[in-house]
């Protein structure tokens, strides 16, 4: 299904930031459903110091959870010790026993310390227990390089989660998708990993004031085109649109698909696009081997082979950790220039 950015109907849409959209989704869901709880490190900040007048000292390391503890109290907004395995597992346990639990993993790079709970409990409990249980659990986490944060604070890593049966995952790219997808994730009865991009927090966009759901598992087209399909993941969607604008000046009309979901991946949306454009480039800031980019290319090659006029291609990070030094980090990331060069090469058939 190809849709352009969904029209806002009768709702009021004002411009807010991506991080405010996340905040609003959390607040509205917590207002709507008293079983929604959220836990994580620094999500309020200054915890335990209410008697000194310190409440909500940080509202989250990136201020996505600001104001929640004042409204919902410290039994629904729980700062945690530095114990991811414990609190992620606890959130999963709470979700299995009647709560809708949201846990925040501060950076996806830290998933190693709590991976067992995600892989062996959240993902598998419903299946292993023969359908007895549902796990309405959301893992909020954050991704993205480009901020000089070096190897252990810059991962994208979402393909690991796509690979795990039992988990779902979303990669919102703007304020509008941030709110709609988080609302959907919280209401979902399946465990969902929600990847916030560090570089998008300040991005403003129109967001309806009232609550709304965007369907999980669906991509969207943000720029219609005819000559080539560019699939972007999270911030890379805007790298694709930047490239598309430049390519238009060269007479190349690129269609940009915003993936939005890394599990399930909306192959149908991508294939429908490739059937019209006959070429595909996936732009993914994750590392390349066994990546989402590779998976989409393989699927398109398998299911849309006769529609392709060029090999499905990828613009990704290299197979290295994220380097610290600025000039190295700059070439690590996909950028519009690399996308343009790849597109031109494919269009010219070499």
């Amino acid at each position, binding site marked *: 299904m190809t849709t352009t950015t969904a029209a806002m109907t009768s709702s009021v849409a004002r411009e807010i930031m991506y991080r405010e959209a996340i905040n609003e989704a959390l607040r509205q869901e917590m207002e709507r459903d008293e079983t929604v709880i959220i836990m994580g*490190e*620094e999500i309020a*900040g*200054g*915890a*335990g*110091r209410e008697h*000194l007048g*310190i409440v909500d*000292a*940080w509202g989250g*390391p990136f201020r996505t959870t600001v104001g929640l503890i004042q409204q919902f109290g410290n039994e629904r907004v729980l*700062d*945690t*010790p*530095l*114990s*991811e*395995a*414990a609190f992620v597992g606890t959130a999963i346990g709470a979700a299995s026993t009647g709560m809708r639990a949201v846990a925040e993993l501060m950076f996806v*790079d*830290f998933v*190693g*310390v709590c991976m067992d709970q995600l892989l062996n409990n959240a993902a598998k409990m419903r299946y292993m227990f023969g359908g007895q249980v549902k796990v309405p659990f959301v893992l909020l986490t954050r991704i993205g390089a480009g*901020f*000089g*944060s*070096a*190897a*252990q*604070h810059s991962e994208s890593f979402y393909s690991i989660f796509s690979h795990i049966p039992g988990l779902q995952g979303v990669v919102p790219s703007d304020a509008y998708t941030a709110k709609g997808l988080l609302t959907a994730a919280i209401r979902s009865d399946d465990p969902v990993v929600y990847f916030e991009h560090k570089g998008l927090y300040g991005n403003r966009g129109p967001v309806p004031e009232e609550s709304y759901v965007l369907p999980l598992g669906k991509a969207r087209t943000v720029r219609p085109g005819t000559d080539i399909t560019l699939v972007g993941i999270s911030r890379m969607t805007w790298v694709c649109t930047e490239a598309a604008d430049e390519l238009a000046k060269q007479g190349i009309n690129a269609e940009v698909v915003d993936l939005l979901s890394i599990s399930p991946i909306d192959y149908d949306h991508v294939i429908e696009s490739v059937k019209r454009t006959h070429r595909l480039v996936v732009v993914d800031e994750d590392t*390349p081997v066994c990546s989402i980019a590779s998976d989409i290319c393989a699927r398109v090659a398998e299911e849309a082979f006769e529609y392709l006029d060029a090999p499905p*291609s*990828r*613009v*990704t*990070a*290299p*197979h*290295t*950790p994220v*380097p*610290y*030094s*600025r*000039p*190295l980090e700059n*070439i*690590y990331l996909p*950028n519009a*220039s*690399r996308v343009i*060069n*790849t597109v031109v090469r494919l269009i010219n058939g070499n």
Partner: protein
Amino acid sequence: MDLDQKTLLNLYKTMTTIRHFEERGIPETGQRQMSASVHSSAGQEAVPTGICAHLNDEDYIGSTHRGHGHCIAKGVDPKLMMAELFGRATGTNQGKGGSMHIADMSKGMLGTNGVVAASVPLAVGAALTSKLRKLGRVAVAFFGDGGANQGVLHECMNLASVWKLPVIFCCENNGYAESTPVEYGLSVANVADRAAGYDMPGFTVDGMDVFAVYESAGLAVARARSGEGPTLLECRTYRFYGHTVFDNPLSYRTKEEEDIWRARDPLKQFRERVVPEGIITAEELDRMDQEAEEMMEEAIRFADDSPMPELSELYEDVYVDYPLDMMRRGVNMAD
């Protein structure tokens, strides 16, 4: 005062070098690399200083995200550290790691680390190497009050105890994990209270007093070196600045509290202890401060004059042995 003049001078020199590195180097880094991920240890100097005074180059330490003081106390060259912070090819890590990953294996410095408590098992592993190969070395595993609640730390304390490894678990309890006060997340009054649970001695000491740290560390290091196993050493200290230099610590700390700890500045306390006893003059301490300041100026010049890494460095040292074209195959890097 039991310590000889040479030891005393080295203790002060280390502390003032750390102080000057943090207060001069971090702002300069912020201007150049524009990275938020730099963490000042100003205020905490006495802890690595007092401990590493008992270590030699072959001994090991594992560090934290707030590790510049650990590096300097262990003998890592501040000039090369500055170059690393500035992302230069001459840095300790060739510009590849930055503040949170500074390492110097020639000094047994197993790296600062961006994942809380993640260097603890590395230090334990180094202790294992020493025991297996009968090297007589010890390892110090640094972590903070936040790290005290991290699962891997507990597993490591248990493991080091049952394997009787020559490791010192050193908790730098500065009262806060980012903005979260220690009392919120810690189930005991003192981190060292947990030592009994792992069958090792535990001590809580004043981490603003380099002599207290030095004395306790001496016992723990001696115990490790003699093969008696690990110790948990908790040093109560304070970071004068925020978690990073970008947060305002007054959003979660009070000015009164900060003033109390500032008054206990380890450099100031050292001066007040040592000068009245006539062992070292105030002028000598001032001179060391001045030398530290000049060292930082030189380090900044060195770093600024150093080249950035070659772009091909991006692909270097991912492995020892791996096909180089696999780093960039099919990903359409820039030409």
